[in-house]
């Protein structure tokens, strides 16, 4: 490492081996990006197959195959794409640069966590190849104890990937605490980092619990220890508690980084200082805190006590407060701003629009009486896709377009970017808005077939999924095209104020030629003149 020339940009030099042994956070970030995007494509194909089955009534695939499709779609998207993608890919790349550091605190650990992630993913892929999994991504007991499919490989994969998340989170927390450049106080950090910081806290605190849960599930299958098995005196609802104690905070591992990106993009493309910097920053921490006390809302119709149901319902409503604070502040940032509608901004606007719908329908589900009716229907499916895809994925795409010039030194084609954004936005709403109505009409989730009265909306939903597919196909194509043929990117194409835009595109190995000294906040735009 010490022998390399630090004035070269990080992409230059070295073959495949130098990438696989790199300690450079930027290269590791890119490696994460390639891996997660690949998994996203696979998870997406499974999604298209699920929708294809539901295009018309009557089986296209066998019911068992359908169960495997939706399980793999869920498990791959959750564990191999949406949890790692923003922190591990974009966070890895930009966290050290945005605080003015040369690297993360533990570069070797960083590389290790990539390998751990790949090993975990490999196990999940092995589960796919050895017959798939049909339990749903939630692995509920007792079915997951008895299912004849590859539950062990899949849960071990989840366990191992958890380590990778923990190590990344730990690395980020230490980096933010110990490696900030002179003058980079916490309150001068870009809001993306506040979000990444809050995410890292959740990763470190919640992931060990899914770790022990998956280990116990494996033990349940191998040794029949009985903790979660009613036949042996155990309690399957206990598994649900354990599972959601991690997996609910995990939902915020997914959404918080997206919110961080939107905070950056909104202020840069409104040419205006962010409104309510402190409110947005601390609401990230508030979301992280609240995320740990709401898991029971996934279990309103399990045997949970009415008192617990009541409390979890009440606490869940609390989530709406810090998230609404963010939405209001983003909106207020745009007010009288000089809005520049480039692709990243379009995605950020899509985020606000779709995430608001996702958030508000979350309140329906938090209300006990309504949830009893809507539980396990397509309403829930629509709700979390509005949050996860309408939220996180839109945030990711905003960030990807925003930082693409910095990462690879090339501009993406703006016109094609807008086209694919429109396709994805229209397709998304066609796919999932319909599912709110299906859910309200009572269509249950996870069935391979449905009654005739659900047919028209299902057909519309499937057509929507093709729009989304087409949008992503265009996007992948132009991103790859731009790597070779895209216009050379200047150091700061968006006139942004954070540190990563003060250095070359793409950055040199050591990011900065000399350590930056920070004297102002991250979004110092002048007063808007009218």
């Amino acid at each position, binding site marked *: 490492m*010490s022998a390399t020339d630090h004035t070269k940009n990080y992409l230059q030099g070295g073959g495949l081996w130098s990438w696989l042994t790199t300690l450079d956070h930027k290269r590791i970030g890119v490696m994460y990006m390639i891996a997660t995007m690949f998994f996203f494509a696979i998870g997406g194909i499974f999604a298209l197959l699920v929708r294809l089955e539901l295009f018309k009534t009557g089986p296209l695939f066998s019911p068992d195959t359908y169960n495997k499709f939706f399980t793999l779609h869920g498990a791959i998207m959750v564990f191999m794409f949406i949890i790692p993608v923003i922190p591990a890919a974009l966070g890895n790349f930009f966290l050290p640069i945005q605080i003015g*550091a*040369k*690297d*993360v*605190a*533990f*570069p070797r*650990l960083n590389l290790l966590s990539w390998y751990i992630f790949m090993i975990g993913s490999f196990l999940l892929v092995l589960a796919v190849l050895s017959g798939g999994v049909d339990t749903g991504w939630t692995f509920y007991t007792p079915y997951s104890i008895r299912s004849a499919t590859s539950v062990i490989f899949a849960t071990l994969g989840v366990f191992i990937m958890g380590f990778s998340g*923990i190590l990344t989170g*730990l*690395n980020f*927390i*230490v980096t933010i*605490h*110990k*490696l900030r450049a002179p003058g980079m106080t916490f309150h001068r950090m870009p809001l993306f980092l506040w979000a990444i910081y809050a995410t890292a806290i959740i990763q*470190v*605190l*919640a*992931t*060990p*619990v899914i*770790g*022990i*849960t998956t*280990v*116990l599930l494996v*033990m*349940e299958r191998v*040794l*029949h*220890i*009985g*903790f979660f*098995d009613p036949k*042996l*005196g*155990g*309690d399957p609802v*206990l598994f649900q508690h*354990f599972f959601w104690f991690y997996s609910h905070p995990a939902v915020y591992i997914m959404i918080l980084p997206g919110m961080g990106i939107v905070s950056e993009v909104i202020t840069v493309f409104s040419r205006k200082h962010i409104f309510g910097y402190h409110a947005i920053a601390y609401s990230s921490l508030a979301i992280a805190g609240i995320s740990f006390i709401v898991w029971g809302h996934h279990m309103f119709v399990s045997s949970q006590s009415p008192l617990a149901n009541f409390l979890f319902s009440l606490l869940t409503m609390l989530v709406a407060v810090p998230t609404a604070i963010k939405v209001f502040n983003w909106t207020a940032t745009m007010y009288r701003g000089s809005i520049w509608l480039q692709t990243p901004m379009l995605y950020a606007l899509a985020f606000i629009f779709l995430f608001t719908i996702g958030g508000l329908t979350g309140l329906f589900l938090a209300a006990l009486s309504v949830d009893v009716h809507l539980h396990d229907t397509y309403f829930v499916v629509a709700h979390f896709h509005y949050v996860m895809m309408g939220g996180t994925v839109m945030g990711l795409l905003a960030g990807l377009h925003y930082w693409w010039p910095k990462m690879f030194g090339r501009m993406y084609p703006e016109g094609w970017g807008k086209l694919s954004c429109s396709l994805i936005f229209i397709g998304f709403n066609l796919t999932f808005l319909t599912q709110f109505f299906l859910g309200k009409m009572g269509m249950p989730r996870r069935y391979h077939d449905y009654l005739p009265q659900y047919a028209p909306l299902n057909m519309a939903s499937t057509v929507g999924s093709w729009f989304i597919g087409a949008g992503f196909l265009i996007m992948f194509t132009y991103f790859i095209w731009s790597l070779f043929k895209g216009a050379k990117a200047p150091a700061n194409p968006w006139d942004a104020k954070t540190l990563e835009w003060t250095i070359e595109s793409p950055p040199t190995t050591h990011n900065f030629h000399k350590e930056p000294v920070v004297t102002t906040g991250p979004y110092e735009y002048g007063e808007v003149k009218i």
Partner: protein
Amino acid sequence: MTEHVVPDHFHSAEQAFESSKLGLWLFLVTEILLFGGLFVIYIIYRAMYPDMFHEASRHLNRTLGFINTLVLICSSFTMAMAVNKTQNDRSNRANQYLLLTLMFAATFMVIKYFEYTHKFHEGLLPGAHFSFAEITHPKADLFFSLYFMMTGLHGIHVLVGIGLILWVLVRSNRGDFGSRYSTPVELTGIYWHLVDLIWIYLFPLLYLIG
């Protein structure tokens, strides 16, 4: 003595040490949460079946458990001394203390091995494999599931600790550490204390409730 080089993304040796230490403490938090899951299961099933826990606990070997507790407490002391001697540049002494710690850790595992084989022999096994006629309570297998999961996970941590101490001992013997650089010794020490501390909780919760 080979001079330790501070990685160039740090400004100073102190910053590097502080970072490593914070990282390790965060890691210990995750360890506590990992074990925390098992402790929660313990609390729940003990509240559900208090009589069974009392009855089943009597079939654990208190004497061996007590000796093991003493062994681990001693090992914590020798580990702390090893750190202290390293910081004062008395590496010969440090090596001796590390060796002692290693021996205590190994003793713990040997005793655990005898406990386990005895349990296997009697049929005091987890879950569905439970086949011990003297306990009448139908849910007694849950206690032994917990016993094996908790002490098993702890045992794995002891084994990892043995590996770490061995690694530190080899490096210390080579002269890598001293007052200027002792991070690996200190971090291994902190980790080792946590492993001991978890046992301090496991011992009364499993062995002494009968």
